[in-house]
């Protein structure tokens, strides 16, 4: 089967790596792919809660690399989708419990059984990040359209090029069409120009993502939501499809939505 290993990373914390990993996992699985999402944020695991699978963890990634259980025993199957699995991080250990070589071996073990291995990287540029990119065939960098996040993304791009893991592609998350319209937020074009890498997706800011995080139901399971559509589009681009980017100007603000609602009667 020869899986593609994709690492989702960012440099800056809290920009949406875990959200992106969970939703791309769901979107790829809904497209009929066999997918495993791996939480490599050891000590600060969160992919389990993003997916709502936190109550089903028995073994974790460190149990596997240290030989306390077999890989199969640690994988948790997401029952909402056909072929989606989670390999959770250890919560009571630290990043040094796993080495980059461990990660390469682990991913090689999964390559034959899956189409995609998605690795949720921790923030930062230390060992956790090194572990996450070691097995990567492709790297997705998540940023928000803000100065600190873009700056950190640039640093990460440099490190990935140095490791010859590039070229990475970019996901711009939490874009607010309203603020862009009033000249109060960097545009997609600005961020691309500054970072000079390929864009693979734009995710709008959407309260539904916070709600979905609260519930442990990834937004990509909702087929009537724009942020969900944005994740599904990224998944299709990963499969090599040409999918046009969502035009953020099409995203109606509250007043426009209200006007439309009235007009529609």
């Amino acid at each position: 089967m020869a899986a593609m290993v994709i690492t989702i990373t960012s440099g800056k914390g809290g920009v949406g790596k875990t959200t992106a990993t969970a939703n791309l996992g769901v979107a790829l699985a809904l497209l009929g792919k066999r997918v495993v999402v791996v939480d490599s944020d050891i000590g600060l695991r969160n992919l389990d809660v993003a997916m709502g699978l936190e109550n089903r963890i028995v073994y974790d990634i460190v149990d596997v690399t240290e030989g306390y259980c077999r890989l199969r025993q640690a994988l948790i199957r997401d029952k909402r989708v056909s072929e989606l699995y989670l390999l959770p991080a250890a919560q009571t250990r630290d990043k040094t419990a796993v080495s980059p070589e461990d990660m390469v071996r682990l991913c090689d073990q999964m390559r034959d059984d899956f189409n995609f291995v998605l690795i949720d990287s921790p923030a930062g540029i230390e060992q956790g990040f090194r572990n996450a990119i070691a097995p990567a065939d492709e790297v997705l960098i998540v940023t928000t359209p803000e100065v600190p996040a873009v700056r950190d993304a640039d640093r990460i791009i440099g490190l990935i090029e140095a490791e010859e893991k590039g070229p990475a592609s970019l996901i711009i998350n939490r874009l607010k069409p309203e603020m862009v319209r009033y000249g109060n937020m960097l545009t997609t074009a600005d961020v691309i120009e500054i970072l000079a890498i390929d864009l693979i997706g734009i995710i709008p800011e959407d309260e539904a993502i916070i709600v979905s995080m609260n519930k442990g139901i990834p937004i990509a399971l909702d087929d009537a939501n724009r942020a969900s559509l944005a994740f599904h589009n990224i998944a299709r681009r990963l499969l090599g499809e040409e999918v046009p980017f969502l035009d953020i100007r099409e995203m109606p603000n509250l007043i426009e939505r209200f006007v439309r609602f009235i007009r529609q009667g």
Partner: protein
Amino acid sequence: MRILDWLFGQRRPSSREIAKERLQLVLAYDRVKISPQLLETLKDELIAVISRHVEIDREGVEVTFTRVKSRSRLIADIPLLGARGQRK
């Protein structure tokens, strides 16, 4: 205040434009790993070398960065003294 800006033909840069400019500058430094201190050192040494051969306006020397797309550029602006036959 938009109306006033419009009336007096002034346009304050938007926060988007400010963000873009600041990012370009900070990344220019990040990428080439040149600190503002190193820039000062470069400037002093440039002045020393060049003034050995031509007379320059030391106060007016500026060493800066600009960035076009992903390329960083070091720019030295060195005003000469004694141009146009002002020299004795």
